[in-house]
């Protein structure tokens, strides 16, 4: 029987091409000094030599593009060909397409396997088709009448059920977006950054939505300790809460509550970042705090020099704080 070869005894050889960048000498040196163990070194070396190469990101980009294009095309069909095809036929066809897209995820679940990357994106497509179908049916048949906006909540519930059934964070993101929509706020970064259109009422809605999402996250964590949904909840709750606080910072007397709330949220976000080692929460805490502070003070400054000086000081302070916190994050690494 041929003995298994250690990566340390095999000659310096890369999987396919000799002409690629390699960190092999450094990795070997660390291993020889005992700084990294055999398992870590083997993994790092295999990746460095391209003995194992993942197309995961390319695959996700392709699948995302596919979902995006199909949904864009479907949107045009729903808008243009209504009379030619007929509403009922469209609703049924879209529902059928959604069912077909969910087949790989259903099969994986029945077989007791985790869905593949493609299965996850097809499931997302199925959920989005359900969204479009429900929205279209509501618009055509006015099923909920004056309570039309409740269909967003229904959508959030349906998506959440699908997300839990198939353990899909992507569909959960769709559910939370629908929930934010029901509260009357957008659920994406682009919406969160439209400060000019913010109002205190909108801020209150965003804060309420963030509170609901935070409570949902807490309940999910308690019910399922191994949940993979926490990150999605965290990002939605953090962004919506900051957006709400900043919206409050724009107008007096809401400002009196908005600024302390912003400070509390920034502290909580930074604390969370430091505790969990996740840099993104440091960025949220510092950048949103800087934006909120500027949103609160700048409209009240008449002198241009004072205004520019204040913003410059805030920007410099934010950069310094972020850098210092980032250092603490690294130093707390094992």
């Amino acid at each position: 029987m041929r003995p298994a070869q250690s990566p340390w005894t095999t000659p310096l050889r890369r999987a396919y091409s000799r002409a690629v960048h390699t960190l092999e000498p450094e990795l070997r040196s660390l291993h020889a000094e005992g700084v990294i163990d055999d398992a870590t070194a083997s993994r790092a070396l295999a990746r460095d030599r391209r003995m194992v190469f993942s197309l995961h990101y390319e695959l996700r980009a392709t699948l995302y593009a596919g979902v995006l294009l199909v949904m864009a095309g479907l949107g045009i069909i729903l808008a243009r060909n209504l009379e030619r095809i007929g509403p009922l036929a469209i609703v049924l066809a879209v529902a059928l397409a959604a069912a077909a897209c969910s087949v790989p995820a259903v099969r994986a679940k029945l077989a007791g396997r985790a869905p593949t990357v493609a299965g996850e994106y097809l499931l997302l497509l199925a959920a989005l088709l359900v969204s479009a179908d429900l929205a279209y049916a509501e618009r055509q048949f006015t099923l909920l009448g004056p309570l039309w906006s409740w269909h967003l909540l229904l959508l959030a519930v349906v998506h959440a059920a699908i997300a839990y059934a198939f353990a899909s964070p992507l569909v959960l993101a769709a559910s939370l977006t629908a929930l934010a929509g029901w509260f009357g706020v957008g659920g994406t970064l682009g919406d969160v950054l439209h400060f000019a259109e913010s109002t205190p009422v909108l801020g209150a809605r965003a804060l309420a939505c963030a509170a609901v999402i935070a409570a949902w996250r807490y309940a999910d964590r308690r019910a399922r300790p191994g949940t993979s949904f926490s990150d999605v909840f965290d990002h939605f709750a953090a962004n919506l809460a900051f957006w709400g606080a900043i919206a409050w910072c724009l107008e007096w007397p809401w400002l009196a509550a908005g600024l302390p709330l912003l400070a509390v949220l920034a502290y909580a976000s930074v604390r969370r970042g430091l505790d969990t080692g996740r840099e993104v929460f440091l960025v949220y805490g510092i950048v949103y705090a800087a934006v909120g502070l500027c949103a609160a003070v700048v409209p009240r400054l008449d002198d241009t020099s004072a205004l520019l000086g204040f913003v410059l000081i805030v920007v410099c302070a934010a950069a310094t704080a972020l850098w210092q916190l980032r250092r603490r994050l690294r130093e707390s690494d094992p």
Partner: protein
Amino acid sequence: MSRWRPSPAEERWLEVASELGAAVPRAALAERTGGWRSAGLLARVALFVLGFIAAALAAALLYVMFGLDEWATLLVAGLIAALVAEWLTVAKRLHASGIEEGLCLAGFLLIVAWITTDELALIAAAGAAGLRRLNPFVTTCAVIALVSWVADTATAHSLDQVVGGGVTAVTFGCTLAALALALGAREYRRPSHDRMLDWLVATLPVAAYAQRAQGYDFESLVAGAGTGRLAIAALLLALSIALLLTGLRRRRHAPLIGFLGCVACLAVELRLATTLATETWLILYGLAALVAGVTLDRYLRQPRNGLTSAALTHREGPLDLLQTAGAAVLAQRSAPEAPPPDSTFTPGGGRFGGGGASGSY
């Protein structure tokens, strides 16, 4: 060991630290990295933006507060920004941490703007800042701006009139991408040099093609035919094959991303050459992408010759955040239409969906 930037050896150790993450104790690498300190991707992006904004604000403040004339403001603000960036590098040993990169880029642009407002000089300044900071994003932006500049020259316009609209820009961009691909075959001591070439390979085909779409309206692109379109299609096809083969042979992501970009450009060219309805081609291309993704996923579920469709790490990274944001964007676009005008539901103010929403999303 240099005070001005990490030596190639130090940069390689920084790369090792980044690759291994928490698996290697920081203290073990501190001496090898020469004490250079860098930030993670998200913090680096935020600090880059903050640094750039700070330099712009300093320029505005100098102009307003001290009453300097425009040209003096550019010079003084540029010098301040560039010197602060250098001080952060030399005294604080910051490398690839964002703040000094944003300041350096803004400083170089302001100083060159004081000398001349010539577009090519500004592009050169951005390129110089990128090379000084070993920043692939800045160098790539400079090269893309160069492609845009070339597309706007009188020579390019004359050539385009002969061979077809936008052909010069696409040819120039694709040639640069091919050159970067060829140069990537060399082994460089600095990982940042590899990354600069990678960024060019990944982005230039799409960026150059976008110049064509930007410079010519959709109708003229649809109407235009003949050798120009054929030349562009042939060029993109040849480059995409080269990128795919090289990506698989070298097992690097950049050529594969460039390949995907070329395929997208070819798909648009194919669309322009046919009379298919927009919704039909959107759905057809979408289905084609999904089928390709599903097939690849199934084929590589079990690693083949080291190639796999599975993720190699379960650490949450910026791409996971991007994926969540992407799903939310898609969900928002497929969510409800504008509220019915005769709705009796009054509370509101929301901009997308929800009670009283305006429906503008």
